[in-house]
């Protein structure tokens, strides 16, 4: 019974999913109600998590489930991300005629899966969580089922993701075979790191995880899926699953396999460098903003992985700081995308932004701040994110990684500048609608101000994150 107290957030969210399903069956036209209720449930879950004492590390259910600072923080980020996605996409869903009860419920399901993933301390539990979130995501990607692109992206994501899950499962079985357990701690203690079998297992699992966070060379699905899915789902894809997958990455590398750092460090460094460079170079030619976001998110994951590759607590912390700031920046960027609407039609190419600054000065100013922040120009939040990552990278004298990473920010700066150029230097087009929902305005203001004013109190976030010590 004591155990159940600690997982009250998970229990609460499962119950609310069932409740919402039943409610959805019995109430016709209840989409709006269910939508709002699910946002409320997400927020209540956050309160439940905050209720758990932050200081204690507890392991539950035969040491297969862990509640610690890392899991609590990442769960809060996931839930907040989910709540924001739901609250700002209402209007988009209505206009795209996909304002259905299943949408918030699927998002809740996938968030539940992510919460299980984040807390998992056992390969089996981890896999169950992963599959729960993935299955919900497949459906979400093809949610606009009357549209060819959406169905295509759902199918594409399903096939490739199933393949990567298969590899991951094979890795799990290898590890179980060579270490005799699926529990992270037991694997860590009983490990004979000279075994090639274990190395193979790690590699397979890393491939599977790299697929989920779309790190190069396992990124192929990302641009198509991001482009094809409904924008609100793209936003969800861009921020929430990454947080969960990154947490698993951290826990997997630093709990059972920290002793084998020599084996996995080169792999992570490669993934990181490849993602940073590819994300920067491939985005240059893109004309569609959603595709561009896909490539930019590949690049950003590269930076988060750079922090992860270091092998110190500071590295992990910097990586978490990075992903949190990245979430805020993407939230702002998508809020702007949701505002590009004219006569009930959404626009999503870079050319549609042409001369935006003349008609919509506030929106353009926010975009300016967000884009410069994504490019990592001080004094905006994106700079500090990169700064912390490279601080921890250079601490371990990994100069090559630091220099490659920073040079690729220069390349990446080019395509962010290109968008700014279109917004500020080009000729104006027709005005967009201005009847945005309150939530959209709030999220845009909130994210812009957070990015802009981060430099006044740069230590707050770091202080929270510095409670996470895995080693």
């Amino acid at each position, binding site marked *: 019974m004591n155990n159940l107290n600690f997982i009250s957030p998970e229990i609460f969210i499962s119950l609310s999913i069932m409740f919402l399903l039943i409610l959805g069956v019995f109430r016709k036209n209840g989409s709006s109600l269910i939508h709002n209720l699910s946002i409320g449930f997400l927020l209540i879950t956050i309160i439940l998590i905050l209720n758990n004492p932050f200081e204690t590390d507890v392991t539950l259910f035969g040491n297969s489930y862990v509640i610690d600072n890392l899991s609590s923080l990442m769960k809060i980020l996931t839930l907040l991300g989910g709540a924001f996605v739901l609250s700002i996409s209402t209007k988009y869903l209505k206009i795209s005629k996909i304002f259905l009860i299943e949408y918030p419920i699927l998002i809740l399901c996938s968030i539940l899966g992510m919460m299980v993933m984040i807390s998992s301390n056992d390969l089996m539990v981890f896999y169950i969580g992963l599959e729960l979130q993935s299955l919900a995501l497949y459906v979400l990607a093809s949610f606009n089922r009357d549209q060819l692109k959406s169905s295509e992206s759902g199918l594409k994501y399903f096939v490739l993701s199933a393949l990567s899950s298969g590899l991951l499962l094979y890795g799990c079985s290898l590890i179980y075979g060579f270490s005799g357990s699926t529990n992270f701690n037991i694997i860590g203690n009983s490990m004979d790191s000279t075994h090639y079998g274990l190395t193979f297992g790690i590699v397979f699992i890393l491939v599977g995880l790299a697929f989920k966070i779309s790190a190069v060379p396992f990124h192929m699905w990302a641009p198509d899926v991001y482009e094809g899915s409904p924008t609100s789902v793209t936003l969800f894809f861009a921020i929430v699953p990454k947080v969960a997958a990154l947490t698993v990455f951290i826990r997997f590398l630093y709990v059972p396999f920290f002793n084998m750092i020599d084996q996995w460090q080169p792999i992570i460094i490669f993934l990181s460098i490849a993602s940073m460079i590819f994300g920067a170079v491939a985005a240059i030619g893109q004309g569609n903003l959603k595709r561009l976001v896909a490539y930019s998110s590949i690049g950003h994951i590269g930076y988060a992985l750079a922090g992860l590759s270091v092998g110190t607590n500071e590295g992990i912390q910097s990586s978490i700081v990075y992903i949190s700031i990245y979430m805020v920046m993407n939230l702002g960027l998508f809020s702007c995308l949701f505002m590009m609407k004219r006569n009930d039609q959404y626009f999503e190419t870079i050319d549609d932004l042409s001369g935006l600054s003349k008609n919509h000065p506030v929106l353009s100013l926010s975009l300016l701040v967000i884009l410069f922040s994504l490019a990592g120009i*001080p004094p905006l939040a994106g700079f500090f994110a990169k700064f912390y990552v*490279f601080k921890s990278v250079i601490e371990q004298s990994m100069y090559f990684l630091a*220099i490659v990473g920073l*040079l690729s920010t*220069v390349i990446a700066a*080019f395509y962010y*500048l290109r968008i700014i150029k279109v917004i500020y230097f080009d000729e104006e087009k027709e005005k967009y609608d201005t009847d945005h929902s309150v939530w959209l305005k709030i999220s845009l203001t909130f994210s812009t101000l957070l990015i802009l004013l981060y430099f006044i109190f740069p230590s707050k976030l770091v202080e929270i994150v510095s409670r996470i010590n895995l080693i």
Partner: protein
Amino acid sequence: MNFPILSSLILLPTIGALFLLFSKDKNSNTGKYVALFTSFVNFLISIYLWYLFDPSTSTFQFVENREWLKGFVNYKVGIDGISVLFIILTTLITPLCIISVNNTIKVRLRDFLIAILVMESLMIGVFCSLDLVVFYLFFEAGLIPMFLIIGIWGGERRVYSAFKFFLYTLLGSVLMLVAIISIYWIAGTTDIVQLYELGIDTKYQNLLWLAFFSSFAVKTPMWPVHTWLPDAHVEAPTAGSVLLAAILLKMAGYGFIRFSLGLFPVASELFTPLVYSLSLIAIIYASLVALMQEDMKKLIAYSSVAHMGFVTLGIFTITQQGIEGSIIQMISHGLVSAALFLCVGVVYDRMHSRLIKTYGGLVSVMPKYSILFMLFTLAALGLPGTSGFIGEFLILMGAFKDNFLVAVIASLGVIFGAAYMLWLYRRVVFGNLVNKDLLKIPDLDNSEKFILWSLAIPVLFFGFYPEPLINTIEVSVNDLIEMYNFNLNMYGPEVQK
């Protein structure tokens, strides 16, 4: 002194910019008066700062130290004799830029003023930050407003120039960021005052020096990474060119003195020949290129490259005269190049052409303009009696002390400088008045007169009486050189002269 005078200098323009941001009307003159008022108040504060400043010591004054990135970086600002002059230069040039927008900026005036004011904040921040990370923050953040100034209000090829400016500078600077973080792990702090005392381990100095050099060399700009400057200058609106020439370029010179010499004496000693060669190439090459220019702004841009060549040359002579000369040359070039760009701006506003061949014979239609333009031309070529002379003379003196050949080649640059400036002046102002459209243009109006005279007075004053400038910097420069030699003796006997 408890009042945070430096922080208020940094913040005041930004507050003015915020005020403008929330004002309703976009093109009226009220915004201009607000901007002018803030920047003028800032100028007065900075003059007061100079008055309070104690030139008899080289320790940093008006220091403010606040916790910022916990346990790692403090927000630390303070000034010594070297920085105080650059701050005054910044606060003097900014209000003049704001007055000059009268005729040049037709669209989105309010946004332009906001960009200029934010720029002023950042530039002041660069000159008084006493922490490497804080310095980097101000140094890099300046790219954003400048990118917009060139890109939105620039000429035909503005997009190309804005991108080139941004990417060149960013590429140079990211290496500096790597170096700054490395310094934190090597020395345990990024506080400049502490770093001066601790010194940096000799074996790391060369690479760190090169990383800083990559950033400052692009910003100076030194040959061969100077190519962004002519583009940026030509396409930027007048006020943008003025800021760029007068202040942005000086950040690099200031950085060389403060960081390269102060933190890495052993490496500076080692790389002096490199800096000498690049400076000499810049002086000779840029002067020759300037001779061939058809475009007035481009000509002045190349003259900036040549003048900054003198500055880097003077800094790395590591003599009292050389460094003092470089600082005075930077201040003087700040005033003179600003004035020259404004002079070009004056005729550009009337004729909408920057080509030299459009003009000729201006003296008969614009006599007042011709007088002022001549004054600045002579100051640019370093005629005795103008501030340009003091700077160049001291630099050459320092260079003769250090290396005879280098000084001789650099002196050639002075002759070339006279050639292209005088030829420019002859072609624009004298000669027959061929282009009949010129007959219709009016002479300077009051605001133009005011701007140019406010630059001419200090140019002449410091030309005849450079004492205030030298007094302010003397002790700081002297102590810097002493510290430099002391560290050199202590850490690097093998490279000692």
